[in-house]
C-alpha cells in the first residue's frame, strides 16, 4: 500500500510536470506585446508598487518568459519548487497571500455544498433504485438529468431574479451587506456572510446533485440485483434490513471512493458561481486573473488545481482499496 502510494505520487509528479508544461506553453504564446502592455498598465495603476520594467523583470526572473520555451519552463519550475510564485498582477500582492486570504471562503462554500449534496442525493438515489421503473424513479431520473443539464449561469440568473430581485430576500452579489456589516457583532457578521452563501450553496448543490444521485442509483441497482440480496430476501430478512444493512453498505464502497476523491476538490473553488455571486473566494480570484491575463496567479492557480486533481485520483484509488478488501493494489 505504502509502496503503491509512493509509486503513484511519483507518477503524479511526472504528470504534473507535463501538465504544467502545457499550461506554461499556453502562457508563453500569449500575444507578444500583450505582456508588455499589461505591465505598462500595471505600473500606471493607482497604488502601483513597481514600474513596468520591474514587473517584466520579475516575470522573466520567475517565469523565464524571455528565454526559450524549454529553458523558460525550467526557470519557472525552479521557482515553483521553491514555492516562489511571484506577485499577482491583478491583485498586486504575492500569489500565495491572495491564496491564503481567499481559500477558506471557497472551502466553506464547498463543504456546505457537499454536505447538502450528500444528504439529498444519496437518499434520493436509493429511493429511486428501490422503485425501479416506478414513478419516483422516473422523477429522480428526469430531475437528476435536469440538474446535470442545467447551465449554472442560467440557474444563477433565475435564482437572482426570484430571490434577489422579486422577493428581495438576498443581495444580488457580494459576500457581506456593506451597509450594516461593520456595525454587526462577530456572530452577526458570521450570519451576514452565511446569508450571502445561501444562493451560491443552492446553485452548486443543484448542479452537482444529479451526478451523485445517478451514481448512487446505478450502484444500488447493481447491488440489489446481486445474488446475496436475493438470498437475504429468500431467507425472509425484513426489507428494511435488506436495503440498509445489506445493499446500502455495499453501495457505500463506490460512493466513498468518489466522495473521498472529491474531498480534495473542496479547495478548488467554484469559478463561475463565485464570480457571478461576487464571493471573494479562490474561484473568483482565478477567474478575474485569467480574464486579465495575470500570468503569475493563473499559473499558480492552475498548478494548484492540477495537483488537486491528481491527489483526488490517488485518494480515490486508495480509498477504494481500503473500503473493499477484494481490491488489491498492484
Amino acid at each position, binding site marked *: 500500500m505504502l509502496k503503491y502510494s509512493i509509486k503513484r505520487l511519483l507518477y503524479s509528479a511526472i*504528470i*504534473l510536470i*507535463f*501538465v504544467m508544461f*502545457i*499550461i506554461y506553453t*499556453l*502562457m508563453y504564446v*500569449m*500575444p507578444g506585446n*500583450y505582456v508588455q502592455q499589461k505591465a505598462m498598465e500595471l505600473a500606471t495603476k493607482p497604488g502601483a508598487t513597481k514600474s513596468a520594467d520591474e514587473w517584466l523583470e520579475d516575470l522573466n526572473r520567475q517565469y523565464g518568459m524571455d528565454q526559450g520555451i524549454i529553458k523558460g519552463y525550467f526557470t519557472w519550475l525552479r521557482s515553483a519548487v521553491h514555492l516562489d510564485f511571484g506577485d499577482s498582477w491583478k491583485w498586486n500582492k504575492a500569489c500565495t497571500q491572495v491564496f491564503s486570504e481567499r481559500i477558506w471562503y471557497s472551502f466553506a462554500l464547498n463543504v456546505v455544498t457537499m454536505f447538502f449534496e450528500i444528504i439529498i442525493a444519496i437518499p434520493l438515489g436509493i429511493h429511486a433504485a428501490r422503485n425501479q421503473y416506478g414513478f419516483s424513479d*422516473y422523477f429522480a*431520473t*428526469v430531475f437528476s*438529468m*435536469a440538474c*446535470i*443539464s*442545467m*447551465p*449554472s*449561469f*442560467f440557474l444563477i*440568473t*433565475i435564482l*437572482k*431574479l426570484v430571490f*434577489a*430581485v*422579486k422577493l428581495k430576500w438576498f443581495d*444580488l452579489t457580494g459576500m457581506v451587506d456593506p451597509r450594516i456589516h461593520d456595525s454587526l457583532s462577530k456572530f452577526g457578521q458570521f450570519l451576514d456572510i452565511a446569508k450571502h452563501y445561501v444562493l451560491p450553496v443552492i446553485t452548486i448543490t443543484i448542479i452537482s446533485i444529479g451526478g451523485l444521485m*445517478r451514481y448512487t*442509483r*446505478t450502484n444500488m*441497482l*447493481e447491488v440489489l440485483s446481486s445474488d446475496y440480496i436475493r438470498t437475504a430476501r429468500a431467507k425472509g430478512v425484513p426489507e428494511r434490513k435488506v436495503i440498509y444493512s445489506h445493499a446500502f453498505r455495499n453501495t457505500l464502497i463506490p460512493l466513498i471512493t468518489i466522495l473521498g476523491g472529491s474531498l480534495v476538490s473542496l479547495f478548488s473553488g467554484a*469559478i*463561475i458561481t463565485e*464570480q457571478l455571486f461576487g464571493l471573494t473566494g479562490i474561484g473568483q480570484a*482565478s*477567474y478575474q486573473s*485569467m*480574464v*486579465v*491575463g495575470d500570468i503569475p496567479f*493563473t499559473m499558480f*492557480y*492552475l498548478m494548484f*488545481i*492540477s495537483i488537486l*486533481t*491528481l491527489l483526488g485520483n490517488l485518494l480515490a484509488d486508495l480509498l477504494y482499496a481500503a473500503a473493499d478488501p477484494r481490491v488489491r493494489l498492484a
Partner: protein
Amino acid sequence: MASYNLNEILKKRAALKDKNEEKEMDLGDTARVKVLSPMRQVMKRFLRNRLAIFGTVTLAIMFAFAFLGPIFYPYGQAETQYKYEPMVSSYAYVQKRTEYTGYTLNPEVKYNRSAVAKTNSNINSMEKNGQEAMAFQAADGNLYLLAKGSESIYTLSQSAPRKVAAFGSGPVKVGTYDGVRKSVSYEGEDLGSEFAQAAAANCKGKSGSFEFDGKTYTFQTGAVKKSFDLFTEPEEGFRYFGENLGAAFEAEAQNAKAGEILEQNGKQYVVISPEKDNYEVHSLENAEVFMVYTQYAFDTCVNSLPLSDSFKQGALMAAVGEGSFEAEAIINTEAFQKQQAEKALAAQQNTHVDVNPVGEEDAPVETEPVTTEAPEGTGEGEGEGELIPEGAVFVNARFTVAPSPEREDVLLISTEDGTPYAELNTMVVRRYNGDDTMDLDLKHAIRDHVMNMLETNAQSEKLEYRIPKQNEKGKNLYDESGALQYEESQMTVKRRTESEFVVDATQTRYLINKYDAPSSKYVMGTDGDGFDVLARIMYGGRISLMVGFVVVFLECFLGIIMGGLAGFFGGWVDNLVMRLVDIFYCLPFMPIMIIVGAMMDASRMPVTTRLFVLMAAMGIMGWAAIARLVRGQILSLREQEFMTAAEATGLPTTRRIFRHLVPNVMPQLIVSATMGLGSTILSESTLSFLGLGVKHPLATWGSMINSVASAAAMEQYAYIWIPVGLLICFTVIAFNFVGDGLRDAFDPKAKR
C-alpha cells in the same frame, strides 16, 4: 409504450394459417420464431424508452427550429430593425435679439478693430441715455459716428479728424523733451533751440516748472525713460482753426459733453476730449457710412431662399432711408422652389441605392446647407460663408421696405408688384441646430406664442403645427409632384431664459428599433442592437448545435486515432498515448478555456476565426475521454476469438482495425458522443455567457442571456433570457436522454 406480445401475434398468425390452409405448424417451424436483426433489436429497445423518445422529439424540434427556422423567418441574426416613431426633440430656438449684428457696406473703408468692437455696448448706452447719435475717436485717430437710423438699425460712419475749434482749461501739451537726444519734439508750434536748452537745464526730477520767454512751463516724466512731457498754461477762450461759427455755437460746444454731436448750418460737429479738460470740435461733414448694425434677422417668405449681401445691405439702408432699394435677388421663387424639390428628390433616389439606411438619433442635418446669416445672431457675423445653390439665378430687382401692416415690429420687404419677399424681425426663429429651414408661417406661429408668453410671463405654451416629414436619413420627404410632405406636430414652446425660448416638437423619426416589446412583427421583440430576438435565438441554436457537432467530431476523430493506436498496438505506443491521456485528463477544462478566450480577446480575433479556434480548443481538450474509452474497448475485443480468426485469415491490419474492431466500438462511441454533445453545448454557452466564447454579432444562446442578465435588465427582459435558457436546458437534457436511451438499447445489462 407499444406492447408487442410475440405469443399473441403468433397465435393470431397460426389461427389465420389454420383457416387458410388448414395446416398445423410444428414446434420446429422457422416461421414460428421471429428473429430481429441486432439493429432492429436496438431500435426496438430504444423506442420502448419514453425518456429517449422525449429526447429524440425535442432534438428533432430543436433542429427544425435552428436549421429550418431561419430559412422561413424573415429576419437575419444581425439585421438591424428600424421603426418610425414620434420623438420629442428640440426643434427650434427662439431668441429676442438684443445684440446687434453688423453688415459691412463699404469693404474698402479701413477701420480700426477697436472702433467696432464696442458697438453693442455703445448702442446700449445710447439707448439708456436716449441719445440718437454718438461719436468717438478710435485708436487710429479717425472719428467714428454711431447714429440711430431707425428702430433697431444703427449706422456707423468714419471720418478723418478735421479740427474746427479747441477750448478748455487743462494744460496744453507743448511737446516732449528727450533727455538723451537733448531735443524737443513739438506738438504744435516750434519754439526753437533756445527752448530746448532751457528745457535741458531745468528738466530734473519728476516734475517741476521753469520760465521761458515770459511763460511758465511745467514738466513731468514722460512715457519713455529720460523724457519729459512739457505743458504750458492754456490759452484763454475758444479758438477757431478755420471759419468762425459764431458765439451760439461756441456756447453750445462749451456746454457739450465729450462725444456729443452738435449741429450748425445743417452740418454735424463732434466735441471730443483728447486730454483732460481740453476739448476739440471736429467736423463730421465728410463722414461716410461703412457699416450698418441691426437687431433684425432676415426671414424669407420662400423657405431657405438665399439672400445676397447686396440685398441685405440694401434692405437695411432702405429701412433707414428712402424705403426702396435695388439689389440682386432670386426673384423667380417658384422656379427656385421647384428646383430645390427636384434636387432633393434626386438626392433621395440616389440614397435608395444604399443598402442599409442609417438611423439617426440626434438632430438630423438638413439637406439644404443654405444659411442666410450667421446662426443665432451671436455678435458680428457678417453673412459670410454663404452657399448659393446651383441654378439659383440672381437678378437685379427693386424692393420696397415698409413696416408690416399685419405684424408689429416687423419690416416687410416686397417686390415692386407688392408681393412679400422677406421680413425683418427682431424675434429670431431658427432650427435648433442653427439652420434657417423653417417655413415662414411656422415661424409666425411660434413667434406669436412667444410674444404671448412674453406678455403673460408664461413658462411654456403648446401649439400644433405641420412640419416637413423626414425619411430615414433625416431628409425631407417629397411627393411625386415634388411638393414637400408635412406631418402634424405637437409643439411646446418653453422659456429658457428671459429672451430665449426653445421649441420642442414631436417628429416622426426613423430609428433603430431597440428593446422593442414582443409584437406580431417581432415575435420576441428586439434586443439592444435592434436585432430581432427570435431570429437570434434560431441562429444561436444553429451555432450552438454546430459547435457541439464539430467539437464532438473532433474529439472522436482524435480519440479514435489515439485510442485505436494505443489499444491495437499496445506496448510502448499504449504507454505513451495513455500518459498523454493522463496529462489531458488532468488539464482543467474551464480555466483553460477561459484563458484561451481571454487571449482571443487580447489579440482581437475576427468573430469567425474565433469561432473556429474555440471549437478546435474544445476538441483538443476533450479527446482524452474518448481515447480512453476506445482503448479499453479495443483491448477487450482484441482478445476475443473473432479477432484471432481475423488475424489467422491473414487480413491486413487496417482491415482488421476498421472492418472488425471499430464497428464493435461504435455503440459506446455513439453513446458518449451523444452525451458529449450535451456537455459541449453547455460549456460553449457558459463561455459565451462569460463573453469569452462566440462573440457579437454572431448569436449564441449564452451571449443572448448575458446581454439581458444584468441586475437592471433581468426582470424586464425575462421574456428573452428565460426561454433561451430553457432552450439550452432542453437541448442538453435531450442529448443526455438520447444518449442514455442508446446505451440502454445497445447493452441493456451495462452498468450505467
